[in-house]
């Protein structure tokens, strides 16, 4: 199957004709807040990928003063176990973003497949997909994650799939309704008349035309995924451990010293909020840029 390369062939002309760099620069000039958020997202991804190289200390170094307030050598201060919070935040981004991206990957794989096939094929399969969405909406998201983690254990894959499952109904709803809007258009009719198979129509004709929606729902979902991961690790049920920090867990670890050292209560939460704001604002900007018709739709 050469679906991915097919999409590229269809999608590149619009980008190539304008010139990639210029198109991005123009969009950034129009929406500086969105561009700033995009840079923040890049920075976060960079920190998560190259964390060990840019972090000033190891996250588990315990050779620092106890609960030192933020200073030049420790920009975010130190915690109740003599550790540097700045380095722990950098390392923590790996868990938060790692789970976030993996969960969104799961939700996209499931959601795009179910949304397009459900919306295009209709019938019993569509009823099953809609039923799944309705059932999923009647689970409190965090309870479902906790349920699955209890059954299958606190592994990266389990938590990512659990959070991905929670995000899937949102993805399905968006992709399915976009598919319904596209399927009645003339070029689909033309493709049917030319004898294209349903599989070809769905993944070669419909998929490229709902990509804008998919990208937008993905960026909103990353914010949600980071929030859910943080809650799960705050409860101590995430992938993180004493030596493998995550933002949610860091807040829990310093619980007894919040009032003596306010930065321990502020910094990890601010990191979570920063990441969520960055992805949400960037998602909004992407939506406006990719498809002006979607403006203000969410």
């Amino acid at each position, binding site marked *: 199957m050469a679906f991915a390369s097919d999409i590229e062939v269809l999608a590149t002309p619009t980008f190539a004709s304008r010139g990639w760099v210029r198109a991005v620069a123009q969009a950034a000039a129009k929406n500086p807040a969105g561009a700033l958020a995009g840079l923040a997202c890049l920075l976060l991804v960079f920190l998560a990928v190259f964390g060990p190289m840019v972090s000033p200390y190891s996250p588990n170094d315990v050779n620092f003063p106890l609960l030192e307030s933020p200073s030049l050598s420790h920009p975010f201060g130190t915690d109740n176990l003599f550790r540097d919070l700045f380095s722990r935040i950098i390392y923590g981004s790996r868990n938060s973003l790692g789970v976030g991206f993996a969960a969104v990957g799961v939700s996209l794989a499931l959601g795009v497949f179910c949304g397009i096939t459900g919306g295009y094929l209709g019938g019993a399969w569509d009823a099953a997909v809609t039923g799944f969405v309705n059932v999923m909406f*009647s689970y409190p998201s965090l309870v479902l994650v906790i349920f699955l983690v209890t059954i299958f254990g606190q592994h990266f894959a389990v938590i990512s799939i659990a959070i991905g499952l929670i995000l899937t109904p949102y993805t399905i709803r968006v992709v399915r309704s976009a598919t319904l809007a596209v399927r009645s258009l003339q070029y689909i009719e033309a493709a049917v008349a030319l004898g294209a198979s349903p599989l070809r129509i769905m993944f070669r004709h419909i998929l490229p035309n709902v990509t804008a929606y998919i990208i937008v729902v993905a960026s909103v979902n990353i914010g949600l995924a980071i929030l859910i991961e943080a809650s799960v690790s705050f409860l101590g049920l995430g992938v993180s451990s004493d030596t493998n920090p995550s933002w*949610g867990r860091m807040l829990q670890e310093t619980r007894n010293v919040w009032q003596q050292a306010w930065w321990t209560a502020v910094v990890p939460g601010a990191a979570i909020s920063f990441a969520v704001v960055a992805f949400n604002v960037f998602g909004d900007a992407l939506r406006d840029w990719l498809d002006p018709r979607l403006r203000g739709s969410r």
Partner: protein
Amino acid sequence: MGKYILRRLLLSVPILFITTVLIFAGVRIVPGDICQIVLQIPEPAPEQCAALKHDLGLDKPAATQYFRWLGNVLTVDLGVSVVNKRPVAGEISERLNTTVELAVLSIFFAFAAGVPIGVYSAMKQNKAADVVLRGLAIGWLSMPSFWVGTLLITFPAMWWGYATPTGYVHFWQDPLKNLEQLYLPAIALGLALSAILARFTRSAMLEELRQDYIRTARSKGLRERVVVSRHALKNAMIQIITHLGLQLAFFLGGTVVLESLFSLPGLGTLLYSSVITKDFTMIQGLVLVFAVIITIVNLAIDLSYAWLDPRVRYA
């Protein structure tokens, strides 16, 4: 109207049915030896193991187990805890109040804060106040509820030495003390929801304010306040409540974290401790109860929708 309610009620039956199947299957696909996991010892004695399997209903064929469990569930018998042998339904009903009260208080807070802000934002569209409020809403939306809770615990204590009273009391024992214990977690939980409601209220109001009937109302000489609150807002409410329903599943999950943060004896803390002790019958019961609560609230939302919008009633 009666037909609509009936149809909507019938719709929640398959959802609850699938839910029971998933919960039932969940406990049965636990990888590894369930005895070792639940008892948390490497070599459990055979008698202990047999007793446990009996409690979990694992000693009979799957179909028998399921229908027996379902029959019990329908008569509000959720089995006994595998850890302390107390009836699951009893433990849950003892704690249900706290969670429901927390949820109701925070939804109330979210409405009281979010809807007026959204209306104000819509009336001042693209003016400075609107831009500032929208920026704030994005910020609130991105703050995890447990972090808001953390800040609400830390800073009042640091600055004024204020802390909410410890030792949980029920509402009917001492309403004031109970509310003082619950208002901070309710704000923490409701803040993000209020931001979501403010955003939806704004866009719904902007849409309604452009409708013909608003022009009619204005040309009749009605005061702006009446036009906004009685005409536009009432219609915007339909959309706002629909969105509230969609947020609910995500929102109720937050009670688990908030209860644990503020040490409230609700369903969330019970779920948390059951996960730690691997109390599978309790977990089963709790997941079911959470799903039932959401189904009921969604049902209530759909019914209120029919009440707010006559078109739904007659469709």
